[in-house]
C-alpha cells in the first residue's frame, strides 16, 4: 500500500471533495480532519498497514472495502476512476457512518493531489 503522510498538515474531507472534484455518495460530517492517506486495492494491505483516521483511495469496489474501513477506523473511502459502488455498499457505509466519495481521477492522480495538499507543495 502506498501511503502519503504529512508533517503536521491536516485537511478536511470537505477539502478532499474540492481537491479531487469528487462526488459525495454518503457522509454527513465532512468537517472530519485527516493527516494521512493510503492508496490500495488490496484490503489485506490496508488491514496490515493503515493507521486509524486514514483516508483510503481504492479502485476496488466491494462491500469488504467498507468492512475494512470500519474495523481499521478509517475516516472515509474514495473510489477512483469514477467507480460507483452498489446499493449494498452504500447502505453499509451509511449505517456505519463511513463517508464515501467518488472521483473521476485515477488512483495515481488522486494520491498525487492529496500528497501535495498534505505536504504543502
Amino acid at each position: 500500500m502506498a501511503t502519503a503522510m504529512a508533517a503536521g498538515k491536516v485537511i478536511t474531507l470537505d477539502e478532499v471533495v474540492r481537491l479531487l472534484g469528487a462526488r459525495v455518495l454518503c457522509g454527513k460530517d465532512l468537517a472530519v480532519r485527516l493527516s494521512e492517506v493510503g492508496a490500495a486495492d488490496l484490503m489485506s494491505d490496508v488491514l496490515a498497514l493503515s493507521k486509524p483516521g486514514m483516508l483510503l483511495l481504492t479502485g476496488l469496489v466491494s462491500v469488504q472495502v467498507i468492512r475494512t474501513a470500519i474495523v481499521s477506523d478509517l475516516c472515509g473511502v474514495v473510489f477512483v476512476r469514477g467507480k460507483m459502488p452498489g446499493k449494498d455498499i452504500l447502505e453499509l457505509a451509511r449505517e456505519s457512518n463511513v463517508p464515501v466519495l467518488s472521483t473521476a481521477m485515477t488512483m495515481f492522480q488522486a494520491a498525487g493531489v492529496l500528497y501535495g495538499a498534505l505536504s504543502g507543495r
Partner: protein
Amino acid sequence: MASEAFENAFAVLGRDFANAGRVSTAIKDTLKGLGIHAPIVRRVAIASYEAEMNLVMYASRGKMRLTVSSEAITIDVDDEGPGIEDVSLAMQEGYSTATPEMREMGFGAGMGLPNIRKNADEFVITSEVGRGTRLHIRVNLLA
C-alpha cells in the same frame, strides 16, 4: 467496565461473502460499548476480521466466540473446513492458497495469519486436515 467475564458466540457461514465481516463489526461495537480503549478495540477488530474472512473464504461453517475479562479479550475461532496442511508455511507472509475470486475481493495475499499474530498478544493456531482449524487470539487489556 464490569469485572466479570462477558461472553458471546457467533455462527459464521462459509462462502457467505455478502455478510463476511458482520461478526467482527458486531464484536467491535460490543467492545466499544464496554468502554474499552480504542487502540485495543482496533487490534481485536482487525484480528477478528482477518480470521472471519479466512473462515468465510475456506471453511464451510464455523463459530467465533468473544470473551472479555478484566485482563484480556479473547476470540476463539473453530471452523469445519479443509484444515491447513502446513501451518508454519501458512504463517509465512505472502504464502497463500487463495483463488482468483478471493483476490478480487482484496484478500488472499498471504497476509491474514501474520497480521493476526501481529495484532495479538497471544495467538495459537491448530489445524487438522479434512476437519478444520482453530484459532485462539488474545489481546491483553493490561500492559
